[in-house]
């Protein structure tokens, strides 16, 4: 069935289909529509789940940890200040290997306060041990809620997943979304299996334990190893999803018109669509440009990224975030992967969209022009801001 709904609505639909046992969430713009819809679904019985009105985000995640620790399926959603307020609990959950799924509506961080979309919030949490996926539209948001549970609960992964969607640009934009049938989702996503890391009356467990300096490092190494190898599961789940529902998102990343591209723009999240639009215009003008949509930032697809980018001349990375005193965080991550290449393409960083600033088609065109110029050997600023309203 097709519906004309917002990204937040789409998330709620995806969650409904994934049937979590318990939802614990705290309202924050622009995530609210999602939790409101879920409240309605619980009230009207279309979702059989416990909705817990927790008193803060820290408790929202702590509650989800409790739910997951007894082997039940947990969902929560947040954004921005809320994500940071709960941040202590994120490495907690991932270290415990609890397959919680969370929606994060990407939003700017105070101060100054701002409710609009940028990606400073989730970039803060790259080290949290959570799998991070970013979606491009409402359909992908819905589909990823379902995929997220299957990935998180996979025996080889057992790691929580954060599904990120851009505030307002996705959360509050309505579009046509296909709602899968419950039966098909049930077939794709089996009920949560009981694993060794959760409580059980038959074999009681101690959870979230202490490991001193004799053992701690090995626990973390195991966590890292499994996160690294989750790449394969992510790819497989996406393929299986494609087979079942006809929508395949290309796993870790989606290379758009990149085959022969001399210049590639790396994007994360909703700006991808605008970049593709401009890319198509430039292709029509005969320019060899492409867009590489990074879907996952953790695990980071070092190898795949290098494969796509290796024969490019210039690469641009769009960051809707800034690590003050350095550069955009995606740029930093992409650069580090590229050092593995013998012949390294030039990379430039384009920072924009902060606090919801529009990234226009003209901005993207400017970015491609700069990259083409760079590819031609001209000097260009390594780090540039897009769509600045005043003198710099």
């Amino acid at each position: 069935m097709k519906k004309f709904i917002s990204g937040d609505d789409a998330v709620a639909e995806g969650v409904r289909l994934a049937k979590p046992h318990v939802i614990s969430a705290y309202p924050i713009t622009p995530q609210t529509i999602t939790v409101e819809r879920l409240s309605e679904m619980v009230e009207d019985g279309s979702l059989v789940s416990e909705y817990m009105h927790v008193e803060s985000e820290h408790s929202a995640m702590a509650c989800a940890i409790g739910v997951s620790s007894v082997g039940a399926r947990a969902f929560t959603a947040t954004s921005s200040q809320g994500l940071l307020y709960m941040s202590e609990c994120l490495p907690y959950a991932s270290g415990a290997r609890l397959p919680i799924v969370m929606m994060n509506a990407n939003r700017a961080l105070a101060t100054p306060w701002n409710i609009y979309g940028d990606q400073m919030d989730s970039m803060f949490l790259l080290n949290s041990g959570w799998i991070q996926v970013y979606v491009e539209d409402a359909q992908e948001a819905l589909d990823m809620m379902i995929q997220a549970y299957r990935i998180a609960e996979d025996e080889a992964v057992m790691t929580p997943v954060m599904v990120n969607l851009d505030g307002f640009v996705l959360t509050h934009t309505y579009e046509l979304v296909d709602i899968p049938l419950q039966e098909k989702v049930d077939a794709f996503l089996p009920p949560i299996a009981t694993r060794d890391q959760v409580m059980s009356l038959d074999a009681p467990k101690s959870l979230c334990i202490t490991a001193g300096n004799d053992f701690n490092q090995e626990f973390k190494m195991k966590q890292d190893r499994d996160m690294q190898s989750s790449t394969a599961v992510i790819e497989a789940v996406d393929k299986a999803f494609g087979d079942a529902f006809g929508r395949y998102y290309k796993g870790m990343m989606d290379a758009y018109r990149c085959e022969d591209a001399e210049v590639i723009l790396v994007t994360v999240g909703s700006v991808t669509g605008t970049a593709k639009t401009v890319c198509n215009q430039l292709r029509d003008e005969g320019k060899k440009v492409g867009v590489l949509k990074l879907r996952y930032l953790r695990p980071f697809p070092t190898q795949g990224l290098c494969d796509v980018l290796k024969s490019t001349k210039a690469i641009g990375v769009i960051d809707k975030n800034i690590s003050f005193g350095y550069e955009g965080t995606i740029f930093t991550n992409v650069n580090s992967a590229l050092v593995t290449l013998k012949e390294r393409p030039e990379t430039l960083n384009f920072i924009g969209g902060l606090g919801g600033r529009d990234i226009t088609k003209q901005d993207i065109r400017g970015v491609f022009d700069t990259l083409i110029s760079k590819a031609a050997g001209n000097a260009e600023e390594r780090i540039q801001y897009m769509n600045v309203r005043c003198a710099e």
Partner: protein
Amino acid sequence: MVEVRWHGRGGQGSFTIARLLGMAASVYGGQFAQAFPSFGPERRGAPVLGFTRIDSKKILDRSEVDSCDYVVVLDETLWGPAVVSGLKKDTVIIINTAVPEQYREQVDNPVVAIDATSLAIEYLGRPITNTAMLGALVAVGDFVSLEHCKEAIAESMKASVGEKNIKLIEAAYKVVKEAYHG
């Protein structure tokens, strides 16, 4: 691609109608659409904007609407710089007014007028003008069919309210069609 900008006041349903248009075009019309509000910290009573984008292909673009094809003004007290900014040469302004002349004087663009308030009071008993303005837009633009709009209304509203709004949109459509194309 068609881009529409809606001008209303918080609480007047301007975003609801932007959404309804998108729904009509996509769910019922088989096209693709986006609808999104412009959202601020201001409270009820402050002017707000809504946008609808419609295209026959999937819409990838996520940037804001800068210049649009249609500007629909739900309440003539909103007339001002916001309404006349970002117009293309042929952008059509559709305004809820009984006295359109004063607006026509101020812009070179075509201005379509409809007394939506009177129509709304007639059909709904309340001055809620959004449905009538959609009727006017559809009559002028012809990029979405009246039928599909009616289907969207029927789907989104309670039966009793929906019926009245369907009557209203038909009336608004007819008035405008007759005035401008008839």
